């Protein structure tokens, strides 16, 4: 299967007080449609920087990132913004939703940004929200939702415009264990069902049981890649005991 996302020998360095810090060091990643990848590792291992580069928010110092056949490094700022709008679905650790838009409006925002808001697309947005169990919450503001519900709205927003790739930064950071499992399981199901490429950055290693590939990072580089389901499950189970 052709990869939707290819990151080839990506490196990101920063200069701090004349010292070169290698935040990401020679990382190569491939993600295929319908594949859900977890980027794990301790704080400072470079996973969020990697995610920022995959989203086109940060330019790599070396290497190339190709998504849907287009190399991000060859795009200018406005093209990258358009690329994120059209091809990327995003959920964040915090500040996920626009506080003054209700659930329906937050999801439709993605369609409005892409100039694709129509009667049909609004119906599609409602369907996605229904799949996430939010039909009764359409008119609620984010402040009237629980943390789990807010994350599910963010997931709906990330999926509603049918992007090539969905990126999730610590989507369960503010959730309790039960909610965290529910959110990631739903996320994984939607990615698999809709044949999207999904990458989730998480520090919660118990959640990796729902993914197809684990990329473990350490000190900016890749320490280990796990693709075998039994290996993934035993990795998750090992951390379940913690």
């Amino acid at each position, binding site marked *: 299967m052709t990869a939707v996302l290819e990151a080839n020998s990506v490196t990101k360095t920063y200069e701090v007080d004349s010292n070169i810090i290698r935040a990401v060091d020679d990382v190569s990643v491939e993600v295929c449609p319908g594949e859900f990848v977890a980027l794990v590792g301790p704080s400072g291992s470079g996973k*969020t*920087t990697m*995610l*920022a580069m995959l*989203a086109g*928010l*940060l330019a790599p110092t070396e290497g190339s990132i190709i998504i849907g056949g287009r190399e991000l490094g060859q795009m200018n700022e*406005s093209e990258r*913004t*358009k*690329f*994120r*709008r*059209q091809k*990327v679905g*995003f959920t*964040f*650790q*915090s*500040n*996920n939703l*626009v*506080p*003054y*838009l209700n659930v329906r*409006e937050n999801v*439709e*925002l*993605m369609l*409005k*940004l*892409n100039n694709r*808001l*129509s*009667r049909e697309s*609004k*119906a599609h947005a*409602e*369907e996605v929200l*229904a*799949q*996430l*169990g939010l*039909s009764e919450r359409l008119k609620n*503001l984010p402040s009237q939702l629980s943390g*789990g519900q807010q994350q599910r709205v963010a997931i709906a*927003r990330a999926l509603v415009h049918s992007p090539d790739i969905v990126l999730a*930064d610590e989507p369960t950071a503010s959730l309790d264990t039960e*909610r965290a499992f*529910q959110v990631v399981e*739903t996320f994984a199901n939607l990615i698999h069902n809709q044949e999207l490429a999904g990458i989730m950055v998480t520090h919660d290693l118990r959640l990796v049981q729902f993914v197809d590939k684990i990329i473990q990072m350490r000190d900016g580089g890749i320490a280990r890649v796990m693709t075998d389901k039994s290996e993934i499950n035993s990795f998750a189970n090992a951390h379940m005991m913690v």
Partner: protein
Amino acid sequence: MYTETLEGRAEPRPVSLDLHVPGVGVPLPPYLAFKEVWRNKGRFLLVSLVIALITVLVLFVDGLAEGLGAGNIEYIQKLEGELILFQENVDLSASASQVSRSRLNEIRRVDGVEDVGLVGLSSASIVFESEDKEPLDISLIGVEPNRPGEPAAYAGRGLKGKRSDEAVIGKNVALRTGLEVGDQFTIKSIQGTDDEFYTLEVVGISDGQQYFLRPSVAVPYLTWDRIRPQGFVDDGDDTDLILNIASVKVEQPENLEQMAERLEDRVSKVEAVDRKTAYEASPGYSAQQSTLNTVRIFTLLIGVLVIGGFFQIQTLQKVGQIGMLKAIGAATGTIAIAFVLQIVYITLLGVGIGIAGTLALSLSFPVTVPIVFTPQSVLLAVASLLIIGPVGGLVSLIYLLRIEPLTALGLGA
């Protein structure tokens, strides 16, 4: 349970059939701006009310500047003649200037002069029989009937005869005394060391013609010379009557400067200036206007700071949210336009409330309060008030433009 809910909703929901799709056609910036204001009505209304109060203050200071200014120079401002002749070397002081009637023919003979009228300026008071009514201080203005200088009457008629006991009263006198055309009234004036009383008949009412912060009464010049306050008793000799200034109507108003020079060349010991120069030289006028202008500017500055402060706090609170919007693909321009529109919405609302409040308040003021609203000054004030919003938000806008989408991931500056 959430999982149960999901299972319970496994069947596709029916598509809504309502024909109204709100928000479909609205461009994103006004949509975002409106939604934020609407869903935070209390907070934004509070800022709008501050802007409304600033609007009331600016409009009243403006009205006061206009009213006090008019009270000082309205008569000169509305003179029919384009040029005003003063005695030379009196610093354009109308009360110090003396122009004798014998100079009139000399002025008339100058090429380009269409008409000229001498004007005498002094003060007196209108007294009433009833002790309940306070005397009203007035500017007593001596004019030549049917010549430049005589205020045009919008009710009744103009003055007739150079020594008749007739008067054209200004609108403010009519409002404050209740006098109407055909009524008689009494003027008190000090002659020598005695109070003298003169009865005049109202033959006409002109629009506002205040001078030296008093409403005015125009009388024929010989009547004026007879009844104006004097240090000695007038013997009635009018062979070389002295008045204060001359109002000159010229044939070609577009060449005022040349005409003024020509008048100064041909008529000895006079200084000719246009009306604006003449009234700006009135005692206290410039100082008064510059003081009120300073108040106005500081009020606008306070407005800029209030709006700037509010939006700066707003923006600081929204850094993460703005970063998120940029990260999901909202163009910086879209967010910036939404921000500016938001300022425009609340400024418009605030200025609108302020104008309505000012109008309501001004209706309750007595006529003695010197507040005048003219369309030009109100429009200028409103325009400056509408500008302070975006100017106040400028710093926040620059800050907002610099917020990086990386902040959504907790990265970036």
